[in-house]
């Protein structure tokens, strides 16, 4: 009963038939109503009598079968799966996990896979490496955030997508409809101090847990130092640095609490820096400084949140988005466009997935047909620093020190590159 109410809240249409139904009647109603799945609540052990018949009837109809009940021990659950049930939930099955499994079964049924699928315990697994993972993506309405959200969904994740643009968010929800994952839109302004808490609450309410964060929201306020006013300066740091910091603080607090309660989560964060933050961008001092701060946030955040089971990495995407209008309009199929945001998304998905559990505190630069790990600040060759050095000694020493080091990479400019690797920022 509780699960049917929960499913109704999640947008499913549920037909509840009450107690004491025969397999025959359940199947008849399911067929008449064109149901995707039959769910059976088990109160005692009478399920033994009808489990096999139910499985057979569900196979005939090509629909899913799920059983749940607090009396079902691990042994019962394994037994029912072996008999052919698609999923079995015992006591305290997590709502998020149940929803994920039911979503996946319904998806498979609608794709016509259920009838042909060989039933059996090994096959009850979930499609996609990110199935069962719940991820918050900020700035999800357009560009990179939209591409990330859709890719995460394709890989089975449940995404809480946020953006200031509510209408565009809804479009993303629609675009994700045919994926194995799901998107829950939660519009908000990421610079609000309450936004991280709202997003966490939304994720926990909707899916019961949270495994990942992609902090992607960004904006651009251009201008040389002499012209950028305080409002723009504050906004740049609010969006890129303060918002990301607050997300880490709030969500990190949740992961810490889970870890302390003995339920450490395999969590992952991807922050968004930029080649501007790594190499500098001409006439974008504030933006570059803010993005540099994000790279360091990933570095130190990795150390701090690592003890609660979270990885923290940053991506410097090179892609055609609203922030990079000078890269020109997007044209045609993303497959033909090396600057399309869609090429970055699999990198993000990998960083959130099981393959990247040991990767943390790293910055990756990806896009325009290539991916690399940019060189980071390293200690230079040390020279002795004479005590109370005279001006003449300084004149003699410092040029030598500077000459010994590799000069920094050239500042980026907005010339559209044909082949340069440090071409753009996102």
């Amino acid at each position, binding site marked *: *009963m509780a699960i049917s109410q929960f499913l109704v809240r999640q947008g499913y249409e549920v037909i509840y038939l009450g107690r004491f139904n025969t397999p025959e009647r359940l199947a008849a109603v399911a067929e008449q109503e064109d149901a995707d799945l039959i769910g059976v609540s088990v109160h005692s*052990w*009478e399920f033994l009598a009808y489990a096999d018949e139910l499985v057979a009837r569900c196979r005939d109809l090509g629909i899913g079968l799920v059983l749940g009940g607090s009396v079902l021990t691990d042994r019962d659950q394994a037994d029912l799966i072996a008999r052919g049930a698609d999923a079995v939930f015992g*006591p*305290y099955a997590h709502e998020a996990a149940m929803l994920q499994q039911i979503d996946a079964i319904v998806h498979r049924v609608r794709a016509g896979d259920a009838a042909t699928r060989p039933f059996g315990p090994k096959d009850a697994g979930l499609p996609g490496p990110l199935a069962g993972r719940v991820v918050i993506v900020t700035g999800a309405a357009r560009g990179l955030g939209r591409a990330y959200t859709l890719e995460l969904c394709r890989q089975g994740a449940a995404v809480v997508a946020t953006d200031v643009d509510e209408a565009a968010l809804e479009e993303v929800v629609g675009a994700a409809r045919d994926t194995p994952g799901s998107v829950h839109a939660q519009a908000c302004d990421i610079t609000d101090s309450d936004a991280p808490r709202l997003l966490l609450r939304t994720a926990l309410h909707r899916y*019961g847990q949270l495994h990942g964060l992609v902090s992607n929201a960004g904006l651009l306020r251009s201008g040389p130092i002499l012209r950028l006013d305080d409002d723009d300066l504050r906004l740049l740091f609010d969006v890129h640095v303060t918002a990301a910091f607050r997300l880490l603080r709030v969500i990190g607090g949740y992961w810490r609490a889970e870890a302390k309660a003995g339920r450490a989560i395999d969590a992952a964060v991807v922050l968004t820096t930029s080649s501007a933050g790594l190499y500098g961008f001409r006439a974008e001092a504030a933006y570059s400084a803010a993005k540099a701060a994000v790279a360091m946030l990933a570095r130190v955040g990795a150390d701090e949140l690592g003890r609660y089971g979270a990885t923290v990495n940053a991506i410097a995407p090179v892609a055609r988005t609203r922030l990079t209008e000078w890269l020109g309009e997007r044209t045609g199929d993303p497959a033909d466009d090396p600057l399309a945001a869609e090429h970055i998304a699999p990198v993000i998905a990998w960083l959130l997935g099981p393959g990247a559990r040991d990767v943390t505190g790293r910055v990756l630069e990806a896009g325009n047909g290539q991916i690399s790990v940019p060189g980071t600040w390293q200690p230079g060759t040390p020279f002795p620093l004479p005590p109370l050095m005279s001006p003449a000694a300084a004149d003699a020493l410092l040029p030598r020190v500077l000459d010994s080091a590799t000069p920094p990479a050239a500042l980026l400019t907005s010339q559209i590159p044909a082949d340069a690797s440090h071409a753009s920022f996102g």
Partner: protein
Amino acid sequence: MTDHEAPASAGTTAAGIPLRPFYRPDDGSRDQDTLADPGTYPFTRGRLRPPDARPRGWIQRELSGEGSPRRSNQQLRALLADGALGVDVIGDNPTVSALDPDHPMCVPSVGTTGVSLCRKQDFIELLAGLPLDRMTLSHSLPPAFALAGQYLAGPPNGIDPKVMRGSAIQAPIYSEDCSYSTFLPFAMRMRLSLDSIVFSLREMPRFHAFLEDTYYISDGGLNAVEEMSLGLLEIREVCRRLLARGLPVDSFAPRIAILVNCRMDLFEEIAKIRATRRLFARMMREEFGASDPRSWSANIAVHTSGLTLTAAQPANNIVRGALQAMAMAMAGVQGLEISTFDEPFRTPSAIAHQLAIRTQQVIQAETNIGAVEDPLGGSYYVESLTDELECRIDAAVRQIEELGDVDTLVESGYFRRILTGAMDRHSSAVQNGELRIVGVNEHTISPEADRFLRDIAEERFEPDYAHVERIRSWRASRRDAPLQASLERVRDASADPAADLMAPIIAALDADATIGEITSCLREGQGLPGDPFEYAARRLPAGTQP
């Protein structure tokens, strides 16, 4: 709020009553009219008792019933040998739904979650050799059949039904929406309740003919206010209908008892019981005009909540049961059942039974809690909470009664929505951690580490196929003509709204009709399909939303 201001709130009770960090002498009633001595109107502080009597303690019993009637009889004897003062017999799933064990849909669950009872001989075997004159027998079974069976089982065991004590659950309003559905229309359920109450008042005068069971309606997740308001609503409805039949209120009110739930907000549960005694007294005296003090004083038994027990770390349930039982001893209840530690998995195992009885015995014998009545009376907090619960429960009852007649509310699914809404609310609160449960949403351990007492808890009582065979072969041995004639009389009585149902039911049971057959005739008399599964399909057409 700045740091140095005193906090204005300390959260809420489980039922949502706002709490303050502490309570003061001016919180809660202090007047003598409200807080009269224990045993005097309005009984806030304790039930009516003979003058100068020392507090008597409570009836200690445990839920029981497993497999065949003979096997269950052994279980009842073991409980009594362990010192239980009463028993509470629960039927297996078919039995509580008035289905026979050899019904094709029932066979695999026969005896697994209670005793299988479908014929007179079953009741005789269940009660064989029990000191029915010195113990109380409560049952979680369809009341009309349970009373009929018990009535017939008395004489063969040498017991006059007139001396039997115990209680029968009457739940005409809610049973179909909870787990005790008998697949009978509301009007028929109400008739069975009224007829069986009248029968019991006449033939078993020491028996509590009307046990209002708020335990089972509330254990899906109702809070204390919802629980007691629905309970009082049903008491009021049944009382009005008994009065309409011409029974004086003082003829039946003393035979009403209430079986309530006890969750984990212990002060709220204690206050609930005190508030219920007061509400019941005022209702009986002021609204129903009862003049016998025995009509005013509610007899309250408690069953500690199975919903508060966890499948994870089952040993923790022993602690929960002890805490709840201690609180209920302080609330001054007349009967107490502890849901055993293995409750999340099964009906009680023998060791769990013994532990639960021992828990009650430790509280009674060693703690001295029972020495003084209403030990918490006068607590600023408890009195304030008692007043608040009284007020909220009363308001909730009035609010529902203003919605219209109960028949319409039942048929429109009003109560089902309350019950399922509560289940959903509870489930969400556990999932999101709002309701803290140790071992479930905090302080969890891995399944591999969670083994203590688990083998006992998960041990399974296999379906009693032998009993099914016994019933199957017995069917053919019955004398058919008197059987069919008795069933025909049940059918006729069902068709006549003015006819008494108890006499034909008892006659049919005595003629070796089964409860399933009798219930089919009750349906057929109303022009409904005799088989409950056909009835269920007709009652709940496809497309009905939860």
